[in-house]
């Protein structure tokens, strides 16, 4: 309905290959960024920024990582949380060993460490597929989680067994630790997430992305195109774990401020998986949708009864959330296997074809 594509013809391949070829889409994107960078910090309350936006963005980042693995390359992983953990603990170690170094450097570096670990656990993916691989990644999940708890060196032998984030500042502004204001932390996360999303979209729209999808859709034919499965899959694991690692580091350093091994338990892995399924396999946008839904759902479930004047125990809320999430998964798999992203696509198509139905 709002689309006026007449006259938007492409005179160069660069323009034709653009990720947002339609002007109206570019405008929309600009608006979203404007809201994210200006409106929310200005108008958003502490709760919105600290308890909604920051976690949402971080989870979305991790979801993107997982989506690259499952959605684009077709490799199921149940170990994402563990890889996030690797990022978190790596960042913790590095930043405590060399406190003077810029924290952003460490956040990214820990991404690379997670990346390395990811590759190791990705190796089996050549021999095995589908559920087998899923189970194999469980090994990563449990082994790494065990390490976080048992290898004292990782948490500097804190008696509590947890890791607390020391305060770090960036250009004189506190970005981590108690003294950091939500808004600053929000900006740090936002910038990183935007940048990494941009990179991810570049990857999936280029040769590498095509190779991944080729492997996903028909690995036999992919080999015939000269695509070597192992490198392609390992690269997917690497990139995926890198995203997870950075997300993990952000999660501890910017969001929670402290964490125990339990923070990276298998449930988180599941939740991320759900974000990807509900959001939409093979869609970056979907990762954001999924993250939003899964993260905001409990908040709503918690808020809703109060709004209705009922009081519900936090336990009940948790249980309800479980039920709803589970139901949603099944619902989406049946009704729209490609998740919210596909629904979005369909809606968009309808708007483009308006007033026609197709």
């Amino acid at each position, binding site marked *: 309905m709002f689309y006026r594509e007449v006259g938007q013809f492409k005179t160069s391949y660069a323009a034709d290959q653009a990720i947002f070829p339609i002007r109206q889409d570019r405008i929309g994107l600009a608006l979203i960024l404007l809201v994210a960078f200006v409106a929310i910090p200005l108008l958003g309350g502490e709760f919105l920024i600290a308890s909604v936006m920051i976690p949402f963005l971080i989870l979305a980042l991790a979801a993107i990582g997982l989506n690259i693995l499952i959605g684009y390359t077709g490799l*199921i992983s149940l170990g994402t949380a563990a890889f996030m953990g690797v990022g978190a603990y790596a960042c913790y170690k590095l930043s405590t060993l060399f406190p003077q170094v810029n924290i952003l450097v460490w956040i990214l570096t820990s991404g690379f460490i997670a990346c390395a670990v990811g590759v190791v656990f990705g190796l*089996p993916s050549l*021999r*095995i597929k*589908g*559920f*087998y691989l*899923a*189970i*194999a990644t*469980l*090994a990563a*999940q*449990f*082994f790494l*989680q*065990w390490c976080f*708890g*048992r*290898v004292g060196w990782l948490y500097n032998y804190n008696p509590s067994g947890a890791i607390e984030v020391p305060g770090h500042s960036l250009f004189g502004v506190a970005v981590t630790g108690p003294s950091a204001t939500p808004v600053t932390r929000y900006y740090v996360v936002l910038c990183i997430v935007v940048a990494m999303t941009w990179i991810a979209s570049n990857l999936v729209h280029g040769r590498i992305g095509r190779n991944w999808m080729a492997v996903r859709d028909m690995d*036999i034919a992919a080999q015939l195109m000269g695509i070597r499965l192992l490198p392609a899959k390992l690269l997917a694991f690497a990139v995926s774990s890198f995203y997870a690692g950075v997300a993990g580091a952000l999660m501890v350093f910017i969001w929670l401020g402290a964490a125990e091994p339990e923070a990276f338990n*298998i449930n988180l892995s*599941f939740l991320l*998986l*759900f974000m990807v*399924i509900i959001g939409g396999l093979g869609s970056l946008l979907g990762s954001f949708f999924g993250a939003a839904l899964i993260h905001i759902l409990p908040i709503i479930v918690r808020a809703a009864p109060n709004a209705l004047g009922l009081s519900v125990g936090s*336990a*009940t809320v*948790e*249980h*309800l*959330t*479980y*039920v*709803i*999430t*589970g*139901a*949603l*998964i*099944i619902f989406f*798999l*049946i009704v729209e*296997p490609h998740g919210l992203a596909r629904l979005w696509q369909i809606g968009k198509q309808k708007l483009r074809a308006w007033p026609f139905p197709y």
Partner: protein
Amino acid sequence: MHILYLIFVDPFVQMAGAPDLLVQTLWEGLVGGVLYALIALGFVLIFKASGVFNFAQGIMMVFAALTLVGLYEKGVPAWLALILAIGIMYLLALAVERVVLRPLVNQPDIMLFMATFGLTYLLIGLGEFVFGGNPKEMPVAALGLPKGSLDFKILGGLVSLQKIDIAAAVIASAMVAGLALFFQHTRIGRALRAVADDHQAALSVGISLNQIWVIVWFTAGIVALATGIMWGARSDVSFALQVISLKALPVLILGGFTSVPGAIVGGLIIGIGEKLGEFYWGPLVGGGIESWLAYVLALAFLLFKPEGLFGEKIIERI
């Protein structure tokens, strides 16, 4: 050098030094293994018949047990609670067939796999929502299961076997035997086997696919219930058991997704393996390796024998 000694020599020295402890550990492992095997068994049933990789099998176990205990705590006599629990497992089977399998039939397996994730969450949420999240105690006595332990003075030491464990072992074996007979000698059983091979065949036996699914899921439910009771009797009933129930997965990889004997052997291997590992090697790395040993075993296994011990070889056609 020393480390190598600690890894490759010392443990065996210990075993030889205290055979009674070894026997005790083996027994512990055996019982654990039996229960793993049971979970895996329910799983194999479903996979054979409906090709669904039922991730929720472990949760079904906890859910079944929780229902039983929950009802009991609500004042329902144990025997009735048991029957009701069975009934609920049947309803569950029906629901799953209606809500999950039927709409998703002909979808890629991976879809169904993920659907069972949804099921997992649904069951956890539901169970806790209805019966509360706090750990519960299995009314062993009320269910007429033995309590206490048998102690043997052998090998210059004391080996004590929990009666409940013995019961578990016995019941488990009984169930396996029962299922075997069921598969071999009943019409439905044969139908199920047929389905595993190809769906048309099943129809020829005169049972609709949907019925078969219900039956299989129900059977799996009962197995889950029994397993749940056993686990529950050994530790409290709560969704903390979920983590244990996931152990069934490595078992499957060892045993192969489609092989009942595989499930059993795999279960025992894992059970015993991780107990021994934990007891003799665990201390080297600060213990707790039980939580991942099974998976790493499985992983190692995958790399060399992806189809499992007894699973059929997968030939990729082009």
